[in-house]
């Protein structure tokens, strides 16, 4: 069985990895230009720009934020938006806009790092398992089953209890739950690539295994990996919010969107709308952008869909 399996997710976001695994398209390379991409999917470009914008905010947070995100003002606790505080103040009188800006930094850092680590490990593991086959593959499959059979939330809570709370722990907890899905996806692609004519040809002329992996097989997986990573980015942001809601997220006082939202929602009945809306919209827009970009990439990189266009 080589069906891709995603990890059991936190909450209802659900697995959505298998979707990406359209069979790899032979010969597709990263040769497409940006202009072609723009023509094929303006939505994708807009999403990309939104994500880039978020990264710019993250990088420049200390320059553009109007206030210190940690400076409490006990006289102005939970004030609705005003000209002074465009997005209002939070439960310690801190400026919400500034916290969203600084939160962008930490949120993206965690999400990107978690995706890089999780998908990175999964990528290499999947390549090797798929290509090497045999015992290594067999053991890998059992290990992946094991990782998936373990409830993701319990895994995260155990990690946090064991390693102590911290940005690194949260990142690891999210990354670990990404590994099995990615590994399976990549392994599946490698398995089908191995059967292709050009690989056979390469093998026939005696290309060494390492070189074969690096030069002929890995490139086949790059496109699906990009799509997968863009989708996982959204999942990671989401997972961070869910962990914060359950009280095992990033430690204060540095803000993340997830902790801003989760902290307000946990045990709330009618929380101040601006405290929910600001981080909620930031999360929703970013996840939507990541998903739309993933979709656009998939449509763009899938030649069969492209052929339909032409």
């Amino acid at each position, binding site marked *: 069985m080589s069906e891709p399996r995603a990890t*059991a997710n*936190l909450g209802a976001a*659900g697995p959505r990895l298998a979707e990406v695994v359209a069979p790899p398209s032979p010969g597709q390379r990263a040769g497409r230009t940006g202009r072609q991409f723009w023509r094929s999917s303006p939505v994708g470009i807009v999403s990309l720009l939104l994500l880039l914008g978020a990264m710019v905010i993250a990088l420049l947070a200390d320059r553009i934020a109007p206030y210190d995100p940690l400076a409490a003002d006990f006289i102005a606790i939970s004030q609705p938006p005003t000209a002074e505080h465009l997005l209002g103040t939070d439960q310690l009188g801190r400026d919400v806009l500034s916290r969203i800006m600084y939160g962008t930094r930490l949120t993206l850092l965690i999400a990107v790092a978690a995706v890089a680590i999780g998908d990175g490990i999964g990528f290499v593991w999947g390549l090797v398992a798929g290509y090497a086959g045999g015992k290594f593959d067999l053991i890998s499959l059992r290990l992946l089953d094991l990782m998936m059979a373990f409830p993701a939330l319990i895994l995260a809570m155990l990690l946090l209890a064991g390693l102590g709370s911290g940005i690194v722990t949260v990142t690891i907890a999210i990354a670990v739950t990404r590994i099995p899905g990615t590994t399976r996806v990549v392994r599946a692609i490698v398995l089908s690539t191995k059967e292709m004519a050009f690989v056979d040809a390469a093998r026939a002329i005696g290309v060494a295994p390492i070189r074969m992996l690096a030069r002929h097989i890995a490139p086949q997986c790059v496109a699906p990996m990009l799509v997968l990573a863009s989708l996982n980015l959204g999942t990671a942001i989401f997972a961070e919010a869910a962990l914060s809601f359950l009280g095992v997220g990033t430690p204060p006082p540095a803000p993340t969107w997830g902790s801003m939202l989760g902290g307000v929602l946990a045990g709330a009945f009618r929380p101040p709308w601006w405290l929910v809306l600001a981080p909620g919209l930031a999360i929703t827009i970013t996840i939507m952008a990541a998903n739309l970009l993933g979709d656009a990439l998939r449509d763009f990189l899938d030649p069969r869909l492209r052929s339909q266009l032409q």
Partner: protein
Amino acid sequence: MRVYILRRLLLAIPTLFGVTVLIFLAMRVIPGDPLAMMEASEGATIVLSEAELATARASLGLDQPYHVQYLDWMGQVLRGDLGESFWRGDKVRDLVLRRGPITLEIAMMTVVVAWVIGIPIGIVSAVKQRSWLDYVTRLGVILFLAVPSFWLGMLAITGSVLAFSWRPPLDLVQINEDPGRHLQIVAGPILVLGIGLAAVIARFTRSAMLEVLQDDFVRTARAKGLSASTVNLRHALRNALLPIITVSGLAFGGLLGGSVAVERAFGVPGLGAALVLALNERDWMVIQNLVLLYGVIFVVVNLVVDISYGLVDPRIRYQ
């Protein structure tokens, strides 16, 4: 077929063995044992001396070497005994039998709701690809993917309290005791989780349908002059079902163990809530057995999913 199932079950043994070892060690490695948590449970008045702690641990069998504790546990499990809570005499089996059904029901109904909503949307979106309908549904789908379900749950509760002065009951009423009251408890989580999963299902349906609609046999069917709806439903959807089943199976497993946030948002006393409470109390036996149970469910769901492939697509053979 029987050989296939048997082989799969044998392959599950190392997986489950790994799960038990992992959770067993995890409970002992992470800080805090049942005694430490009990000291904390009633405020700061309970402080034990080292000697008291030692005797208390011994009385619970916690002073035994790990392998002895582990083998004891496995022996119990193999005898069909899921053990008991650390101090209280209550059986883990009773806990599972009482709370399992409601969590199971929510998970199953969530998948049903997700199929009922998600598959038609996905089909329409695929058949009318690049129409405004496609764009609108895709946008809606992606929006729902990006809204945390625990937030939806909270909004639903606050809304119903303020508007109708009503909220779902907080106790656990089984369906045979009082169906109406039972429905009030499960409806909210099912809808919220179902809508979230429907978005996932719709995405999968759409992409699987697009994939299949390009295939030769669909073209052949069209060429034979079969009506569009027959082609779409009889031929295309049938083949597109494979990934949908895969995802649903996975989501089902995730829902059994991972819907804690939504259970908490609605105040449903399900198995997820029990697991979190056990984790807070460091009630090792409860945690270990529940995690093992989740592992078993994962294996079974996977098997069922794989077998159902054969039912959907007769070309798949099991060796």
